[in-house]
């Protein structure tokens, strides 16, 4: 029986980590407020809302890429579909409940994910990458050209703040709690998925589609389902984004955003549910930190403030470096560092004990 106990413990550890991380994240605004205003030169809560929104996308994308081994270079499309759906509904239909707009965004995104995923997921590897890249581009052009619906390049303005049963999420702080509770709920859902039957099926198809098929896993259906799930998560993120920014235009859903999502998954750790979260936090904060540097350290070129023009270069560089040196991402790197530290500590302890014995 004790042989069976170990994987159960791993499960319990996952849930405990979730609880700790949730508590930690919910406390961040308190700390952010405790720090005197002008020290950081950035609005932590505001950036964290954006990070939480991205996390919705990345958690789903990690299921698709990291666990099921499929690729999507076009998830900004679903992010955009979610955003435009709620934006159009809430600005055009008078009195349309915003929470319903968000749900509609996620649902429509999932539905389009199903329509697109069914044919596209027959492709593998590079071909799937190309097809999803094309999907992202098509969506971007549609956002620009369906002017009557999307407002073209100008976009949609005056999107009302999200309100749920009379509770208005009209400040960053309120939105912060809502978004991160949603992220944690999506995390919980993902953890449940990957540790049970469906997750084993996804991991099996990642490892060998032929073997997974032969062992009774309906791989084509699993691929479509996980694609739909990731599209719905992305749509949910996009809808929250629309209500957070109050203004959207096609620029928020360009290919670069798709690449950013993938970079977050890769940097954090493909196939590691926590890794995705680390990737999101790192890549959302990194540009902000670089832009704030000249204010922290006098004498740095102020040109860094226009760093956002170079973000794509950073993503590209990170992708290359991580693929070369840390293909399993930061999460794996941290794990290995911890292992190394433990071995090192044991080694030092052994040496100390040996010395003590010699000394006698």
């Amino acid at each position, binding site marked *: 029986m004790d*042989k069976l106990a170990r*994987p159960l413990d791993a499960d319990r550890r996952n849930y405990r980590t979730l609880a700790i991380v949730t508590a930690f994240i919910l406390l961040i605004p308190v700390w952010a407020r405790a720090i005197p205003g002008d020290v950081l030169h950035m609005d932590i809560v505001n950036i964290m809302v954006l990070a939480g929104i991205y996390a919705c996308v990345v958690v789903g994308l990690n299921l698709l890429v990291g666990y099921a081994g499929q690729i999507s270079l076009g998830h900004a499309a679903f992010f955009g579909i979610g955003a435009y759906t709620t934006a159009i509904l809430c600005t055009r239909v008078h009195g349309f409940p915003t929470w319903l707009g968000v749900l509609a965004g996620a649902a429509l995104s999932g539905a389009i994910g199903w329509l697109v995923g069914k044919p596209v997921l027959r492709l593998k590897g590079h071909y799937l990458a190309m097809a999803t890249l094309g999907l992202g581009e098509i969506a971007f052009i549609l956002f620009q050209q369906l002017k009557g619906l999307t407002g073209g390049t100008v976009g949609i303005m005056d999107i009302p703040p999200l309100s749920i049963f009379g509770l208005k999420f009209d400040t960053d702080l309120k939105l912060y709690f809502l978004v991160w509770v949603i992220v944690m709920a999506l995390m919980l859902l*993902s953890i449940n998925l990957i540790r049970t039957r469906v997750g084993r099926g996804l991991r099996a198809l990642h*490892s060998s589609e032929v073997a997974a098929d032969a062992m009774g896993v309906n791989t084509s259906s699993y691929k479509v389902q996980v694609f739909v799930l990731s599209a719905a998560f992305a749509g949910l993120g996009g809808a929250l984004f629309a209500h957070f920014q109050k203004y959207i235009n096609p620029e928020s859903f360009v290919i670069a955003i798709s690449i950013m999502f993938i970079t977050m998954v890769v940097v954090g750790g493909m196939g590691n549910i926590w890794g995705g979260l680390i990737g999101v936090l790192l890549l959302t904060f990194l540009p902000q930190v670089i832009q704030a540097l000249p204010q922290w350290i006098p004498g740095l070129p102020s040109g860094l403030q226009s760093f956002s023009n170079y973000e794509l270069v950073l993503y590209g560089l990170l992708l290359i470096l991580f693929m070369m040196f840390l293909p399993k991402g930061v999460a794996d790197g941290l794990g290995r560092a911890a292992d190394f530290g433990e071995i090192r500590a044991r080694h030092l302890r052994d040496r100390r004990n040996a010395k003590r014995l010699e000394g006698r």
Partner: protein
Amino acid sequence: MMAAQTLLEIRNITKQFGGLAALKDVSFDVTAGEIKAMIGPNGAGKTTMFDVLTGILSPTAGEVSLKGQSIIGLRPDEITAMGMIRTFQTIQLFEGMTALENVMVGCHCRTRSGFISSGLRLPASRREEKQIKEKAMAVLKDVGLHTRANEIGTNLPYGQQRLLELARALASEPDIILLDEPAAGLNQYETGELATLLVRFRERGLTILIVEHDMGLVMQISDEIVVLDYGEIIARGAPQDVQNDPRVIEAYLGIEA
């Protein structure tokens, strides 16, 4: 003697790859409860036949029925659910999964929790998870791998990986199992163990169709042998008859008859 019941019926299977016929009009039956061997030189079409039987390839012509039902055009997972499963010539364990998890995947077609039930951890899903774990552990015990349950499958010694593949297939509760060179790479002792195991499974009612190059093993355990060469059946019958058939000797040794 009980009336022998045909479990798997293979009728006039032809498989063309472009101009090359990998299988030409092959027909044979597998009777419930027997161990049937399919042998032949490399490239004779044995693995192609397995791929056709398990739905990985569709035949150019011909018919296959399992328990009286046609399985042509069904997906591999549907055929597995109907009670026919295979192992692979090159070991195909799932990477990064423990031995136990590998076998748990084998339980897939006998369980049903989907994305919603698993994601929300509904009671049905929890119950099923417990059953899957117990079942997988029992199967591991059956092949003697229960002490390695929590080790990563692909880290096990080669012989144990073969056993693990067998266990994973058995977890699907098959009526018939197709073994593609299960003794490849095993030493003599391990092959002997495998033979004992297979005979034990047959006694329990499992039907086995085996492709194998280890003639010692084939002769020892099979009830009947089908010999393929260049995609055609050149001989069939009891082990000792096949062994002395001049066409078989020619196919294997290339002697002019």
